C-alpha cells in the first residue's frame, strides 16, 4: 500500500460511515463481556436483520469504554450517547433510533467528571473503533504516523521526535524511551529485535489488556515505527496466556496488516521490512522482568539474569533488543503524527503525557481511565472515580502492585507523577490503582503482597527466595496475633537485605508494600502485636492475655 492508498481508504471509510443513519458500538472488552455484552451485540445484529435496515444501521464491537462497573455499555454514534446496563431487550429501541427516549434513564451524562476530567491519547480509539476491522483504524488516521516515519523521516529524526516528547516507559521504571531507542539504534549489528512487554503481571491491573483488546493496531504501528527507528526487522509481542481475547485480536490484526502490506516487506514501498510474531506467556509474574521475558521467548525457564549487559546491548539471542511496554508503544503513533513538542505540553516537567490507570477496589466507578500526568490522587479517586461506596472512608490507594506502596489520605493532593509517588514510598508502576476503605487491614495487605512475591519468586537468588518466605511468615504471625515487638525490627532488617542484595526487581521491590504500610499505618501493626486487635476488623485474633479488649471477628 502507498501513502495515497492509505488516504484514499481513509476517505472511503469515513464517507461510508457517514452514510449510515446509525452506528451502534457495543463494548466487547472483557469487563462488559462478562456482564453479558455478547448477547446484546447478537440481539442488535438480529434486530437489524429482522428490520431489514442493514444498509443504514451497523453494529460493531469496540474496546473498553472505561466505565466497567456500569456495563454492559453501548454507544450510539449519531449523538455520541453512552448507555449503561444495557440488556438484549433494548436492541429494538437502539436500532430504531429511539434510545434517547426509551432508555433515557440509563444515559450516562457526558458532562460527568468521569468523562471531562480525562484526557485520552493512548485510549483515544478505545470504544470508538472496531478493533477487528483495520479500516476503522485507518479511518481514525491509523498507520499515517508509520507512513510519515518511513517516507519523510530518517531513523535518527524519529528518535529525536520521541526524545523531544519526553516519553518515559510505562512498564514501571520510567526510563526515557527516546534514550533507550537511541541506545539500540547505535549498536553496530545487523540483527536487532523489538519486543513488546504485554505480560502485565501486576494483580489488579488491566490497562495493557484493554489497550490490546481495544486498539491492537495502535500497538503494531508503534512497534513498526520503533523497528524503523532502531533498525530491527523482527518484533515479538509477549502476551500473558490468560489474555485470550487480546491474543485473538492481535493475531487477527497482524494478519490484516500483513495483507495490506503495513507489516512485512516493502512497507510503504520503501526498503523497510518488519514482521511481528506473538509469544504466549505461561503464567509467571517474573516473566514481566525484561531479562526473564527474553529467556522465556527463547523457550527457557523465565529466570532473570544479572544486568549489565542490558537488553539494548545484548538481549534476545544475544542481539540488541528494544523492549518496551504496551502503553509505551501506544503513545508512539500520536507522537510521530503530531510531534514530540505537542506531547511535551501535556503533563508535568519531568513526567510528560498521560497515564492510563485501572481503577479497582472500594471505588464507585471501577474501570479504565487516562489522565494527564500530575493529576491529583484526589481528582482520580473522588471526582473521576466517584469516591468510596457506601459512605465509607478512604483509607489508602495502592499503586505499583507488589512493587509499590499504599498511599494514605494525607497525600491525596500530591500530583501523580513518577517523582512524587517515589518520594512517598510508592511507585507509578504499570497503572493499577486499588482503593481501600476502612475495612481493609493494612497489615494483611502487606501480607497479601508478600504472599504474592513469595509465590512468584523464581528461586534463582537466595535473598528473594528465602527472604520473601521469612517476611511472609512474620507478617502472617502478626495477623494471627502471634508476633512480638522484635518482629517489626526483623521485618525492617530483612527488607533492607532484600532491597540491596536481590538479583532482580522482584526481590528488590518486594519489601515496598511492607515498608510503606509500616511507615503510614504503624498503629495497625502495634494494635495487632500488642493488643491482639485488628482495627479494620479483618483479621481473626485470639484475645491478648494482658488485655481484655473485645476480639473483633
Amino acid at each position, binding site marked *: 500500500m502507498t501513502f495515497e492508498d492509505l488516504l484514499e481508504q481513509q476517505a472511503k471509510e469515513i464517507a461510508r460511515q457517514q452514510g449510515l443513519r446509525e452506528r451502534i458500538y457495543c463494548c466487547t472488552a*472483557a*469487563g462488559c463481556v*462478562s*456482564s453479558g455484552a455478547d448477547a446484546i451485540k447478537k440481539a442488535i445484529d438480529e434486530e437489524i436483520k429482522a428490520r431489514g435496515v442493514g444498509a443504514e444501521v451497523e453494529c460493531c464491537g469496540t474496546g473498553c469504554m472505561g466505565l*466497567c*462497573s456500569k*456495563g454492559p455499555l453501548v454507544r450510539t454514534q449519531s449523538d455520541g450517547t453512552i448507555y449503561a446496563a444495557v440488556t438484549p431487550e433494548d436492541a429494538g429501541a437502539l436500532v430504531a433510533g429511539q434510545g434517547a427516549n426509551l432508555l433515557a434513564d440509563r444515559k450516562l451524562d457526558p458532562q460527568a467528571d468521569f468523562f471531562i476530567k480525562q484526557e485520552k491519547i493512548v485510549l483515544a480509539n478505545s470504544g470508538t473503533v472496531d478493533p477487528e476491522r483495520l479500516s476503522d483504524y485507518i479511518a481514525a488516521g491509523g498507520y499515517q504516523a508509520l507512513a510519515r516515519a518511513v517516507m519523510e523521516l530518517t531513523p535518527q529524526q524519529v528518535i529525536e521526535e520521541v526524545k523531544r516528547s519526553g516519553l518515559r516507559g510505562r512498564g514501571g521504571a520510567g526510563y526515557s524511551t527516546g534514550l533507550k531507542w537511541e541506545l539500540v539504534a547505535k549498536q553496530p549489528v545487523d540483527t536487532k529485535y523489538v519486543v513488546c512487554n504485554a505480560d*502485565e*503481571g*501486576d*494483580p*489488579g*491491573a*488491566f490497562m495493557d*489488556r*484493554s489497550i490490546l483488546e481495544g486498539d491492537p493496531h495502535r500497538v503494531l504501528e508503534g512497534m513498526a515505527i520503533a523497528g524503523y527507528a532502531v533498525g530491527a526487522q523482527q518484533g515479538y509481542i509477549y502476551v500473558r*496466556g*490468560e*489474555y485470550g481475547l487480546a491474543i485473538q485480536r492481535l493475531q487477527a490484526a497482524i494478519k490484516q496488516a500483513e495483507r495490506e502490506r503495513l507489516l512485512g516487506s516493502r512497507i510503504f514501498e520503501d526498503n523497510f521490512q518488519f514482521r511481528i510474531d506473538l*509469544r*504466549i*506467556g*505461561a*503464567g*509467571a*509474574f517474573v516473566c514481566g522482568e525484561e531479562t526473564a521475558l527474553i529467556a*522465556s*521467548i*527463547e*523457550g*527457557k*525457564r*523465565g*529466570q532473570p539474569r544479572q544486568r549489565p549487559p542490558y537488553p539494548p546491548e545484548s538481549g534476545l539471542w544475544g542481539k540488541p533488543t528494544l523492549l518496551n511496554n504496551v502503553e509505551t508503544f501506544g503513545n508512539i503513533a500520536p507522537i510521530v503524527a503530531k510531534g514530540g513538542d505537542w506531547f511535551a505540553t501535556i503533563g508535568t516537567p519531568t513526567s510528560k503525557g498521560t497515564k492510563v490507570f*485501572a481503577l*479497582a*477496589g*472500594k471505588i464507585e466507578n*471501577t*474501570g479504565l481511565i487516562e489522565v494527564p500526568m500530575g493529576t491529583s490522587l484526589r481528582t482520580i479517586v473522588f471526582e473521576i472515580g466517584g469516591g468510596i461506596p457506601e459512605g465509607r472512608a478512604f483509607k489508602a490507594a*495502592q499503586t505499583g*502492585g507488589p512493587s509499590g506502596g499504599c498511599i494514605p489520605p494525607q497525600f491525596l493532593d500530591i500530583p501523580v507523577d513518577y517523582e512524587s509517588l517515589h518520594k512517598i514510598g510508592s511507585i507509578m508502576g504499570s497503572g*493499577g490503582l*486499588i482503593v*481501600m476503605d476502612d475495612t*481493609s487491614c493494612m497489615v494483611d495487605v502487606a501480607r*497479601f*503482597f508478600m504472599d*504474592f512475591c513469595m509465590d*512468584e519468586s*523464581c528461586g534463582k537468588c537466595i535473598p528473594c527466595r528465602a527472604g520473601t518466605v521469612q517476611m511472609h511468615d512474620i507478617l502472617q504471625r502478626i495477623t494471627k496475633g502471634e508476633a512480638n515487638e522484635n518482629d517489626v525490627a526483623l521485618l525492617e532488617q530483612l527488607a533492607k537485605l532484600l532491597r540491596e542484595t536481590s538479583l532482580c526487581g522482584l526481590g528488590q521491590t518486594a519489601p515496598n508494600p511492607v515498608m510503606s504500610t509500616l511507615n503510614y499505618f504503624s498503629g495497625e501493626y502495634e494494635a495487632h502485636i500488642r493488643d491482639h486487635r485488628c482495627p479494620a476488623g479483618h483479621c481473626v485474633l485470639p484475645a491478648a492475655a494482658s488485655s481484655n479488649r473485645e476480639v473483633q471477628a
Partner: protein
Amino acid sequence: MPVVTKPDVPAVKDNRERFLERAMSRHHYSGDALIEVLHTAQELYGFLTPALLKTIARKLRLPPSRVLGVATFYHFFSLEPKGEHSMIVCTGTACYVAGAQGLMRVLEHRCAKAGSTSPDGKMSVQAARCIGSCGLAPAVIYDGKILPRLTPDQLNAELDRIGVK
C-alpha cells in the same frame, strides 16, 4: 479419577499426535519453541504426562531435564489430569480487597486446595493472579465462564447444585 484418554499408550494413533507433530515442524523442531509446543500439547491432551514430555524432548533435541524444568516452572502447565469441572479463583488485588479469600476457603474446604483436584475428580481448583475483570471483583472462572461479584453463599449453592459433597 476422571476419564481421560491415555496418551501414554504409544498405540493411540489419533489426530492429536499429528497436530502436535505439525506444531513442532512449524517451528522447525527448534528448542526455542519449547513453550509454544508445550502450550499445544496441553491444549490437545489436557495435561502433560511424563511420556509426552519425553517425546517432546526427543523431537526438539533437548535434555528431558530442561523440558521438565520448563513445564514445572510455569503455572500454566499441568502435569496432572484436570477434574470434570474447574474453578479458577482470582486472587488478584481487587478480588482480594473484595473478599476472594472467603471464596477460596469454601473451595478448599469442600473440594481441594488451589492447584489440585478433588479426590472424586469432580472439581479442579486453581488460583489466578488477576483475570483482568477487576470491576467484577471478586470473580471466579467456572468452566471458562466468569461468575462476577460472587459471594460464599452463591458459591456454596453452585457446589450443591453440581453435587459436590
